[in-house]
């Protein structure tokens, strides 16, 4: 079953939270996160990494692509703390922080994600990290949370003090 089929089977929601709804270009990203890997689309001809995924390379215009592994390490580029009004399942966890993380491997690739206090707690509640611990530049590591059968999303575990 593909990730898209898994999301469809779940009705696009897991306990009221939105699941990623992959498009054809994004599907491989979610197939890799299901395997616990953070990979980024790159041009198979000129090597330019691009995110979000798209059909052709904006530099050399090749349609050939490959998915390059990353270390999954990065730093918080910015973050918000979301408060209601929110959809009910989100409001239950609010206020919760959401970070945009720039990858150590390629700072122009920034990934959005919720936060967890530790790499050992991929399933921690969204509000488990005290907001006072958050700062721009804080080091983080990708972990993977299974939200529904066949669907896993990356989250960011704080790795610093």
């Amino acid at each position: 079953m593909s990730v898209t089929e898994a999301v469809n089977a779940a009705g696009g929601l897991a306990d009221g939270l939105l699941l990623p709804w992959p498009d054809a270009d994004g599907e491989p990203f979610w197939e890799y996160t299901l395997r616990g890997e953070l990979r980024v689309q790159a041009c198979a001809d000129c090597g330019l990494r691009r995110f979000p995924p798209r059909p052709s390379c904006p530099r050399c215009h090749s349609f050939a692509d490959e998915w390059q592994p990353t270390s999954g390490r990065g730093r918080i580029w910015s973050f918000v703390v979301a408060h209601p009004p929110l959809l009910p399942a989100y409001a239950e966890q609010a206020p919760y922080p959401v970070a945009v993380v720039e990858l150590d491997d390629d700072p122009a690739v920034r990934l959005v994600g919720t936060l967890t206090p530790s790499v050992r707690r991929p399933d921690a509640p969204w509000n488990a990290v005290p907001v006072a611990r958050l700062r721009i530049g804080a080091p983080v590591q990708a972990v993977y949370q299974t939200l529904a059968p066949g669907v896993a999303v990356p989250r960011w575990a704080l790795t610093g003090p």
Partner: protein
Amino acid sequence: MLKDRTAIVGIGRTRFAKNLDEPEKTLACRAVLAALDDAGIDPAEVDALASYTMEETDEVELAKSIGAGDITFFSRTGFGGGGSCATVAHLAMAVATGQASVGVAWRSRKRGSGVRPWTNTSVQLPTPAQWTRPFGLLRPVDEIAVLARRYMHEYGATRDHLFNVALACRNRANQNPEAVMYERPLTREMYMDARWISEPLCLYDNCLETDGALACVVVGAERARDCRRKPVYVHAAAQGLPAQHHGMVNYWNDDPLTGPAWTAARQLWKTADLGPQDVDTAQIYDAFTPLIPLSLEGYGFCGRGEGAAFTEGGALELGGRLPINTAGGGLSEGYVHGFNLIDEGVRQLRGSSTSQVPDAATCLVTAGEGVPTSALLLRN
């Protein structure tokens, strides 16, 4: 070149409120007919229509209800509030190139009593939403708050700077009996104590949720001189979609804080006889307060990173360096996808604003920053 070859000769609107009884289609027709009456032009003469892709009243419905003649030009611009000024720009181009002679642009929206778009979970989450929504960046305010915090971090902007924006808009609304917030002053204490919506943005950093409709009429300069009101010329107009831009979630390029305003501004000033220093008042799209410093930088009123400091010392107030959103803007007059900013730009250049800038001769109007955008430079 578009330069002064067309003019806005009529403006019309409905009342603004949190909840209007009439449907959007009725409100659209009322605003359009009011604008045509303001211009003194018979609806049967209308042959061009322009609106937003998000507009729910389509051309067929509008034209047959107002009694328009044969329509020979119609266009829609996408990206929500980024399309506001583009509606007038497209009409100006159509009239200037002979595709039509009387154009009407409009926006009707029940955003006050209707649904918040982000609450609709039945819509699929195609790119780029699959990269943000599942992680809790649900709403436009969350998407902009990410950029706002980064902006504050890079340039030392503070909540007081954002308050300066909210206060300037509120002060103008307090002078405008048509504004939703006419009788509701704002203080620094209220702002600093307000509930968070998406930190670092609080309630007062967000625009209102309003029901209402607006329209304007565009004709050629020659025809404009025979209309009922003083013409307001479209001196320059521009759209902007920067290279490698990603919309509200512009997180995936080398410089996320350089938004579409910069692209629209380059085109605008290139085709104008005027520069930012010549602008008497600006109506700047303000769905969220951080869009103002970002736009001030993009349109060249100050340097990169100086937009927050620009707001200090009452610069945005009446009598300040650049009075903005003189009817109250989306933050305090009403939020109708930025169309009321066009309306207020026309009033300023007619000399009929409730917060009139003395001898205003040039007004910049902008559409949403942070999305593919558009802008108008109006003069009288």
